[in-house]
């Protein structure tokens, strides 16, 4: 009896003591700090594995390139092909090659896949000329593909950008130097950092400094190093081919379009001083190419404006080694499985089912996609109208030249605006209203281009534009640097005929080695 009592008392005392002892103060959300024994200049991805094996494991999950979602996914199919994967996908953009005629993007443009493939894919892409000792594109193309930038910039300074791309091929290891730990982390403390030259500069011009940015801002800025629209600087404005983010007038399509009315050195009438990425081979229009403006699209969307960071959805916390959670370093579509939706979206939308959340995403994406295709068809029609007008032999309006400048200006704008949405990787979801507005503006500009071109010819070309654009200008499905070496290929489509025949040549480069 007494022993029982003693035991019960002891148990109660122990419980009470436990309750008292375990009264911990919950800390502010401060990220843990680390001290590695790595050198401050470490850039090899594998060097980080022993310190952070669980993070590294999720990083290697980026190697999975086998799964599609409804409008996105990781199979690196050609974006203009509408066949089954792995070559194409049901949501394709059949006119891309037409719309980029005369620009390297018409040779090859594929769906993005995991960061672990970034360096491999830039070395493998047909946009960079592997049939020659001259790449045709500057070393700036490495800027967002490799941790080697951390070494190259201090070594070469601003000379680096315009150097020969091929010169650096043999310096890179495709696994160890692809986008990795050193891109976003200080190797010694693992604190978030910005290694991007153009982002650092763009923020400075806005009077900001990432070194003073909040943790929440950094959780998006590290992505903004690369997932942004950019251009290569004209040498009139400083170091040739240096990457610049065109944000000085704001980050919306209209701001960026205004920005590009400056920052170039062309003397072409009506476009003096405009920045030009390329001149469209068929319509002779000075064009702007837009690249993956994720950051500029996200920042004032429903999530971005509410302070929800890229990492909130794309680097959701996961508990993989027992209990402690880590940020997932698998950057991919959060829609790949109900579990992923729960883990990413469920952190905030706990009251919604994965099926419901997915349907809401697709609700936006479907509408965006349909309008994107309509905008591209109208853009093709605008190019064709300008082509027809410029070759028109009949009666022309006295202000023909001025009307043609107007027409080409609208082709340029219409092209830039659909490209904004096309190049952005969320099919509208990151900012539904902005995506649809941008596509509406694209369609308006392209239609105005058609109108000006018809007016210039006193509607003489109008009958050539009747009917379905797919019959007037069929989509180009096959085009590459190799094919452009064949006259037969150039004769196979009315628009391809505007391209110069390239001299016969064999591959000089195979990834990071010379071709055998």
């Amino acid at each position, binding site marked *: 009896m007494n022993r029982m*009592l003693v035991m*019960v*008392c002891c148990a*109660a*005392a122990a*419980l*009470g003591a436990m*309750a*008292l002892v*375990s*009264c*911990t*103060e*919950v*800390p*502010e*959300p*401060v*990220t*843990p700090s680390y001290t590695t024994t790595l050198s401050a200049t470490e850039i090899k991805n594998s060097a980080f594995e022993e310190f952070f094996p669980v993070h590294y494991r999720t990083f290697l999950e980026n190697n999975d390139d086998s799964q599609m979602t409804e409008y996105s996914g990781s199979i690196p199919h050609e974006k203009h092909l509408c066949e089954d994967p792995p070559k194409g996908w049901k949501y394709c953009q059949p006119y891309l090659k037409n719309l980029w005629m005369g620009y390297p993007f018409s040779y090859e443009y594929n769906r993005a896949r995991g960061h672990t493939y970034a360096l491999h894919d830039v070395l493998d892409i047909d946009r960079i000329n592997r049939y020659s000792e001259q790449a045709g594109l500057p070393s700036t193309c490495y800027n967002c593909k490799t941790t080697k930038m951390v070494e190259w910039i201090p070594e070469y300074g601003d000379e680096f950008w315009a150097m020969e791309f091929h010169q650096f091929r043999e310096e890179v290891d495709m696994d160890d130097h692809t986008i990795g730990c050193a891109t976003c982390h200080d190797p010694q403390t693992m604190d978030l950092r910005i290694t991007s030259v153009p982002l650092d500069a763009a923020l400075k011009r806005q009077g900001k400094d990432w070194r003073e940015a*909040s*943790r*929440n801002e950094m*959780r998006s800025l590290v992505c903004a190093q690369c997932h942004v629209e950019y251009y290569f600087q004209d040498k009139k404005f400083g170091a040739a081919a240096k990457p610049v983010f065109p944000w000085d007038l704001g980050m919306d399509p209209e701001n960026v379009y205004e920005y590009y009315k400056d920052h170039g050195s062309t003397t072409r009438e009506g476009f003096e001083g405009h920045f030009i990425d390329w001149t469209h081979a068929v319509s002779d229009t000075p064009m702007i190419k837009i690249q993956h403006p994720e950051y500029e699209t996200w920042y004032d969307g429903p999530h971005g404006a*509410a*302070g*929800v*960071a890229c*990492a*909130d959805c794309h680097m*959701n*916390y*996961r*508990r993989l080694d027992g*209990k*402690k*959670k*880590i*940020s997932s370093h698998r950057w991919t579509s959060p829609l790949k499985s109900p579990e992923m939706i*729960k*883990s990413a979206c*469920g*952190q*905030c939308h*706990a*009251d919604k089912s994965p099926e419901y959340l997915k349907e809401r995403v697709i609700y936006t994406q479907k509408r965006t996609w349909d309008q994107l295709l309509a905008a591209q068809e109208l853009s093709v029609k605008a190019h064709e109208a300008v082509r027809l007008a410029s070759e028109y032999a009949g009666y022309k309006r006295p202000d023909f030249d001025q009307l043609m400048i107007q027409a080409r200006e609208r082709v340029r704008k219409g092209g830039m605006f659909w490209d904004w949405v096309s190049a952005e990787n969320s099919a509208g979801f990151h900012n539904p209203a902005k995506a649809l507005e941008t596509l509406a503006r694209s369609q308006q500009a392209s239609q105005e281009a058609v109108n000006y071109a018809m007016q210039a010819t006193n509607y003489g070309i109008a009958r050539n534009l009747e009917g379905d654009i797919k019959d007037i200008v069929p989509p180009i499905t096959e085009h590459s640097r190799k094919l452009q070496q064949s006259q037969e290929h150039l004769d196979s489509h009315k628009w391809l005929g505007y391209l110069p025949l390239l001299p016969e040549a064999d591959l000089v480069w195979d990834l990071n080695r010379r071709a055998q």
Partner: protein
Amino acid sequence: MVQPPGRGKVAVLVLLLVGAGLYAGMAFSMKVTDQPEFCGSCHVMYEAVRTHQVSPHANLACNECHAPETGVPKIIFKARAGTKDFYQNTLGDVFDVIHTTDKTKDVVNESCIRCHSMTILNVSEKMIEAKPYCTDCHRSVPHMSKLPISERRVSDE
């Protein structure tokens, strides 16, 4: 001559004392284990406690919402929940995102009504029927789950 108290009476007294002590201990333990300081001693609960501490409910104990109010149901609920949480934390798997169970949601909703009954008098029955839980409208109450992640969570917790 005063008779020394009988052994029986001493035993009763001791038992009473021990009983009172035990009761006080139990009451104290029950109180302490209701508090965020106790709940927050498991790192997986940091996010919940952190968001609680900056909320308008910061001065209330976790179990003012998360357990039934009254004695026996509360003891049973706490024992069950505590055992389950202990198991999940040691031998089980903790989910990437920890969500409430339906059972807890019902208990929490009862707690809303318990404290805010006077306010609810102003709300028609229809309103309560329209949304099953008070937090279906008062959405930041469940641990400010619409705040950006960086204000709620950090790794290693």
